[in-house]
């Protein structure tokens, strides 16, 4: 597969893409951008009320990173579609958003926020590792930058996961949160409608099902029975690949969102809806 990827042509910009490739890339970019955008908003809710001042600072900084990543991704999308990034980001109703189900959900308590961030950041690391080799050069370049920053997020939430796990109550809450979030987390790897086109052109180097297997394989030694022994609903199949043992909660990538997203949507689009087209 790597050989195929290296012999594939690369695309310097949107003009190099055929119409179907452009549409498929737009679907991918919107999913990536919406994940980061909405998570950034959830993260920002901890500003001022996190358990420690250090975490107020950390969550605020991380939220700024995520919204910046979203903006850069919306700008790549804007270059494809001719619409501007602000309009793409804000001028949609709830069903127009393509975030995965995991990001629909409320931030919950501290343990749930940590559990979600850990699942997201590990999944994102897998996805970014693959996309750093996208044949769409502007995406590969941006991802190369984003993953350097995301490494700090992952390191932070890895430390928090282990810290909560050392405390009896912390471990109980962490386990309950992971248990509850796993089906929604699997939606991060729900195949996209135009995935075949993305794969054929190398815009997405590997299928989402393959990325999901890589993610589970990487998490097995950490969350599995030989690691922290936290909820890990996956097993190795006969061919050696990891697969989930639970049904994913899907719908995010087609705009069918959990009602929890509704409140956040109203809040994050409030200013835009009051004054559409305003610039600031």
């Amino acid at each position, binding site marked *: 597969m790597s050989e195929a990827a290296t012999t594939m042509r690369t695309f310097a910009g949107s003009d190099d893409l055929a119409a179907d490739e452009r549409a498929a890339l737009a679907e991918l970019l919107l999913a990536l951008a919406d994940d980061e955008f909405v998570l950034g908003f959830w993260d920002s809710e901890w500003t001022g009320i996190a358990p420690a001042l250090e975490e107020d600072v950390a969550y605020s900084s991380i939220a700024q990173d995520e919204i910046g990543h979203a903006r850069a991704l919306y700008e790549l999308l804007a270059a494809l579609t001719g619409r501007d990034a602000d309009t793409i980001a804000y001028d949609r109703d709830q069903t127009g958003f393509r975030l995965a189900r995991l990001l629909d959900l409320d931030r919950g308590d501290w343990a749930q926020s940590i559990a979600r961030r850990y699942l997201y950041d590990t999944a994102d690391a897998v996805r970014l590792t693959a996309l750093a080799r996208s044949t769409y050069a502007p995406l590969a370049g941006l991802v190369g930058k984003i993953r350097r*920053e995301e*490494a700090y997020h992952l*390191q932070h939430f890895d430390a928090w996961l282990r810290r909560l796990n050392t405390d009896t109550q912390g471990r109980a809450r962490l386990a309950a949160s992971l248990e509850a979030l796993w089906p929604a987390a699997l939606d991060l790897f729900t195949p996209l409608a135009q995935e075949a086109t993305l794969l054929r052109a190398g815009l997405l180097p590997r299928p989402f099902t393959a990325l999901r297997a890589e993610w589970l394989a990487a998490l097995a030694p950490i969350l599995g029975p030989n690691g922290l022994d936290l909820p890990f609903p996956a097993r190795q199949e006969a061919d050696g690949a990891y697969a989930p043992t639970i049904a994913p909660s899907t719908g995010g990538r087609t705009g069918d969102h959990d009602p929890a997203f509704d409140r956040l949507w109203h809040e994050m689009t409030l200013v835009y809806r009051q004054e559409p087209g305003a610039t600031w």
Partner: protein
Amino acid sequence: MKTLKSTAINPEPQAVDQDARPSGPNPHSAFRTPHSLRVWSALHTVFDPEIPNISVVDLGIIHTVEVTPERVRVEILPTFVACPAIEVMRERIAGRLRELAIAPEVSVVVTYAAQWSSDRITPAGRAALRASGFAPPDEAPSFTSDDAVNLNPLGATRPALPACPYCGSKNTMQENRFGPTLCRSIYYCHNCRQPFEAFKAV
């Protein structure tokens, strides 16, 4: 026409810092022409809006410089994707280059064609950071483009603690991986009992 300022720039060759371009020779750059020397010299006089003694060259954000009779084009690399200072720096660079009046068109473009890493900060830039009370970054972690997934990308062992920029002591501790700006972490010096900030190694 604000040409007076440009004549104040002395395009002496020493002013061009080869270390500012660690990513190697730039095929698009007319690096040795007198005009491009003037551009590089001018870039040495554009400073980071938050740390006013480090230039955009020493910060390592200049990716390419292209000078033709028609235009001056500079590509810059954001230190962090969400850093609001990049737009300020873009405007300041463009303003400074227009003052040179080398070509009718000046464009300053933000790009991710290459990725800024804290390793791009020059030795002069590291000294400038220290003088401003910021510990310079440790060596940046390497990111390979192979397909191996790494869920511990910053390494299993903690990076070396930075020396205190005030007293030089190595008896420091990390207070927060994140800080008041995206590019910095917060530390504390046990020796002089001062909190200080260090640049993230990215």
